[in-house]
């Protein structure tokens, strides 16, 4: 149906071809998935099918692309419109008319179909895609999933033989993505449509593919094969494949179902390990202080971890004794990040599991970063950041950003043992359950932290939650109206320094609105919002950037300048930071970006990192990210995870609004689920994620009922 014959595409002004030696054939009625890291030319290959490359984009295409027997060299896109339906990345820029029904008819009108045929097909398509209730609605008022379905429907009505989709589910919440994929599945099975699609979120789509075309690297020839074969060699793969590779399953499982069938031995094996004191399974609380202690030592043999960790435990008591505390902690702190850098995952998983269920940890983990702020960075500075960019970032300079994190985590872990006795109130299963009690428990500590901060000179400039603010963010019975829509109702949320919270929920559930409220972009209709000690919508922007920073959904919105250097200079001015602060940060987060690049020419992930550096220049203790992984491949995502973990370890409170369950599983201590503007669940990631079928990460589904969330946890446990 689609045949590529030795195709290479060189864009005007480019030295090298974007894709080279593409030679494969997509048989009729198959769903073929195009995968590969960012920037390997997936969109170019897709564009070549519809003829937009090179007719619309310019450039030179050598070789031959034929679609249903038509050569794209001699057929312009509009002349292929009856055989190829194309849906781009952004459905909104696809729509020509303003209501659903007209949009479905538009393509047929262009092709000149008879009115009665059009009418029939529109009705059929409305039913096929479940859009009948929306037929008269203005497209602008639809949700993301609905828009994506309308976009697909609008290219289906002319009955194309080939459907080309570029990232159809990336912007969608898990449920909406399922909806779209179900439709595609139906088209392939019932109508025999040939589908070629590119997608970064392989965990959502790979099981539907009949074949996978892998573009391994820019300019490399594609690899075509069955999904299991290709996934075995692919540089990008979903967690289920990662787990399969880890466990040595062959052929690789692609679906949860396959993986679960194979996973019984693995579960048993891990179950055994769970029983040992070394790794306490999430379900069972850690008993005694010694228990936890052992756990660490047993955990770590994989890496050079143990020595620093054991000293980390004594650090805990220091917590209660403010002044001397940091001092003993200091050597441990410095030691830990660097030595444990390699096995960084292990401690994380420990904490996660613990905080998941173990009552005490939810609370204890909160003050922990505070300690870190005061103690960690101080020693870290001379060793790790000669550049002297400031305390919070020093630790980032360590080769593995998550290195320092592990140090902190260990600390937090040990804490319950020592601190538990003094804090019986922490017996609540979820952190939200007892905001009042938790707050009460935290208050003395906060003041203690404040005093600490005052003493530690470096900490003064670091993530400063603001004196007297125990939470980095505090939202109380917040209601927000947007036009006629009640976007949020009675939302309560508190985020402590060092805590990472994932906001999840379907498109339009109010996640972005909540973030906007936290940076003062929208005013509450009722209730209160505080970011540190400030009321965001009443605070002048200049002061607010030092308290809270938001990386918006489209990071480009934050970037105005022509070059990276100018952007960084402007960020320094905006934040009243020393010149060069932003640039130094950027170099830490993303080495190898030159000064004179235009922000527009950066890749999606690079642009996100630049925006992050710009926001971090003001060192806000509260960092918000809206849908940060849209358009990122797995490698870029892993970098982001590393950066965010390190930031959390430094005491930044992080709130992410995301649809990416895998990201939430990797990063978040807590997950807050929103629906229709209300908080419907708020608890440790392991609990919330495992409880919800649509928000559970793949590993959790495979390992259920055990609460493993990420492959990294499993890998560490097996090591």
């Amino acid at each position: 149906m689609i045949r590529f014959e030795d195709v290479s595409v060189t864009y005007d002004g480019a030295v090298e071809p974007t894709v080279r030696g593409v030679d494969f054939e997509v048989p009729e009625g198959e769903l073929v998935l195009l995968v590969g890291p960012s920037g390997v030319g997936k969109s170019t290959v897709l564009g070549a099918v519809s003829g937009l490359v090179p007719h619309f984009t310019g450039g030179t295409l050598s070789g031959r692309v034929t679609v249903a027997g038509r050569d794209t060299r001699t057929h312009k896109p509009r002349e292929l419109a009856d055989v190829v339906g194309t849906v781009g990345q952004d459905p909104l820029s696809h729509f020509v008319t303003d209501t659903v029904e007209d949009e479905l008819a538009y393509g047929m009108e262009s092709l000149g179909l008879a009115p009665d045929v059009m009418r029939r097909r529109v009705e059929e398509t409305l039913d096929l895609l479940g859009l009948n209730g929306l037929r008269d609605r203005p497209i602008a008022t639809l949700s993301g999933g609905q828009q994506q379905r309308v976009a697909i429907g609008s290219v289906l009505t002319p009955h194309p033989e080939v459907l080309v989709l570029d990232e159809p589910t990336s912007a969608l919440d898990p449920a909406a993505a399922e909806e779209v994929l179900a439709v595609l599945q139906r088209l392939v099975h019932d109508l025999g449509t040939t589908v070629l699609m590119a997608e970064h979120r392989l965990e959502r789509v790979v099981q539907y593919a009949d074949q996978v075309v892998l573009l391994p690297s820019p300019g490399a020839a594609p690899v075509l094969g069955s999904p299991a074969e290709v996934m075995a060699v692919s540089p990008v793969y979903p967690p289920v494949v990662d787990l399969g590779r880890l466990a040595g399953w062959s052929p690789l499982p692609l679906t949860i179902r396959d993986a679960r069938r194979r996973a019984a031995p693995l579960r048993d094996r891990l179950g055994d390990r769970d029983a040992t004191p070394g790794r306490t399974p999430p379900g069972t609380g850690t008993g005694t202080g010694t228990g936890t202690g052992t756990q660490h030592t047993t955990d770590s043999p994989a890496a050079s971890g143990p020595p620093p960790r054991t000293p980390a435990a004594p650090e805990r008591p220091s917590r209660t004794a403010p002044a001397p505390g940091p001092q003993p902690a200091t050597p441990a702190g410095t030691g830990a990040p660097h030595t444990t850098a390699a096995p960084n995952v292990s401690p994380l998983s420990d904490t996660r599991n613990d905080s998941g269920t173990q009552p005490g940890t939810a609370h204890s983990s909160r003050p922990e970063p505070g300690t870190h702020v005061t103690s960690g960075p101080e020693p870290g500075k001379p060793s790790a950041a000669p550049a002297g960019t400031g305390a919070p970032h020093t630790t980032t300079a360590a080769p593995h950003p998550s290195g320092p994190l592990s140090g902190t985590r260990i600390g937090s872990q040990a804490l319950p043992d020592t601190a538990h006795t003094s804090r019986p109130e922490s017996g609540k299963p979820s952190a939200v359950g007892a905001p009042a009690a938790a707050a009460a428990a935290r208050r003395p500590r906060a003041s203690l932290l404040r005093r600490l901060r005052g003493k530690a000179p470096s900490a003064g400039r670091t993530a400063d939650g603001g004196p007297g603010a125990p939470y980095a963010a505090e939202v109380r019975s917040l209601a927000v109206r947007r036009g006629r829509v009640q976007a949020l109702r009675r939302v309560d949320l508190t985020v402590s320094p060092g805590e990472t919270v994932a906001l999840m929920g379907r498109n339009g559930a109010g996640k972005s609105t909540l973030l906007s409220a936290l940076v003062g972009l929208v005013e509450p209709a009722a209730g209160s919002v505080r970011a540190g000690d400030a009321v965001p919508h009443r605070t002048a922007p200049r002061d607010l950037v030092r308290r809270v920073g938001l990386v918006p959904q489209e990071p480009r919105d934050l970037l105005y300048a022509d070059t990276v250097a100018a952007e960084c200079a402007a960020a320094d001015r905006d934040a009243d930071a020393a010149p060069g602060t932003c640039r130094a940060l950027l170099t830490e987060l993303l080495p190898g970006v030159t000064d004179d690049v235009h922000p527009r020419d950066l890749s999606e992930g690079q642009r996100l990192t630049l925006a992050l550096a710009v926001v971090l220049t003001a060192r806000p203790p509260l960092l918000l990210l809206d849908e940060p992984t849209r358009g990122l491949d797995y490698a870029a995502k892993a970098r982001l995870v590393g950066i965010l973990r390190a930031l959390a370890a430094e005491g930044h409170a992080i709130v992410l609004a995301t649809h990416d369950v895998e990201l939430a599983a990797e990063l978040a201590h807590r997950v807050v689920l929103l629906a229709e503007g209300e908080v419907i669940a708020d608890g440790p990631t392991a609990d919330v994620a495992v409880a919800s079928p649509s928000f559970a990460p793949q590993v959790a589904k495979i390992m259920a009922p055990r609460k493993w969330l990420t492959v990294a946890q499993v890998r560490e446990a097996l090591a």
Partner: protein
Amino acid sequence: MRRSGARPASSRAARPAGVPAPRHHRADALHPGAWWLWALALGVAATRTTNPLLLALLVAVSAYVVLARRPHTPWSRSYGAFVKLALAVLVIRLLFTAVLGSPIPGTHLIVTLPEVPLPDWAQGIRLGGRVTAEGLAFALYDAMKLATLLICVGAANALASPSRLLKALPGALYEAGVAVVVALTFAPSLIADGRRLRAARRLRGRPDKGVRGLLQVGLPVLEGALERSVALAAAMDARGYGRTASVPAAVRRTTAALTLAGLLGVCAGTYGVLTAAGGTYGVPVLAAGLAAALAGLWLGGRRSLRTRYRPDRWGARAWLVTASGAAVAALLFLAAARDPAALRPGVVPLVAPTLPLWPAAAVLIGLLPAFVTPAPEQLAKEPS
């Protein structure tokens, strides 16, 4: 086709109670042209009178119909913008009268502003000075006329978006029409972009208000709009926009010749009509030019493959709506001829305007569309 019953019944809560009109359904949606004719006819009627009571009645009539019958689309909110614009016109006109004075001789002095002495060459222009009730009343009446006209255009906009109207264009003009529609839909998204980017300035710690903020986001907004237009152009191309049928060369050439000749004829004819010398040839040449141009358009339409999906039909309701507007206009023309005093109340001497009964009754005919057209669908829920 009519009321096929395939679509779910919608609630009719939005309409005033007890109005016997059919529920909204695409098949019997009113032709957008009817709405525009009705609204423009009300506007024309407004030009016939300066009686503030009659003008207020006209505004009330259009507002009632708009509130009862506007659909739930982003476009329909434009009515509010037009009302604000009309108020601004009113205020500006009154301010100018107060500051620059008025030619109307008045005796009822309201206030005397300090007068700015102007040099000789600026004779006839006055700054400041006496502000009289007569002058203000005259300005108010005059400005109300313009404001009413604006509100009527706003009503047309709200009731039938221009993009729906453009769909009724002849085939040859269709592609130009789509370009206009796309431009029209980009304006709102441009504004939305501007707002979003201005808000984003706040995230950078810069003030999000003020002119500078607006200027600084200008370039990124335009860049974004441009990128989106390119993406849309690609999508439209891939969906078959601009596909043409192959027509015989002879037809193509004839089309070109007819269109060109028609346009030249229209130009020459217009020139003839407007100049004193060309009184004899002006009208026939203009007519011939128009005919040629129309023929060219019709022939040109044969190149376009396009078909129309469920075009709006011009039915009995459309006739009724149009007729109601036309009746208002015609009756006010008649009234203006018969009873100029009532429709143009004097300001010297200053008298309170009275509401002439039968012209007022005539204006009320304009309410007819609120009762005979289908009610808009009530939106169940609007996601953010």
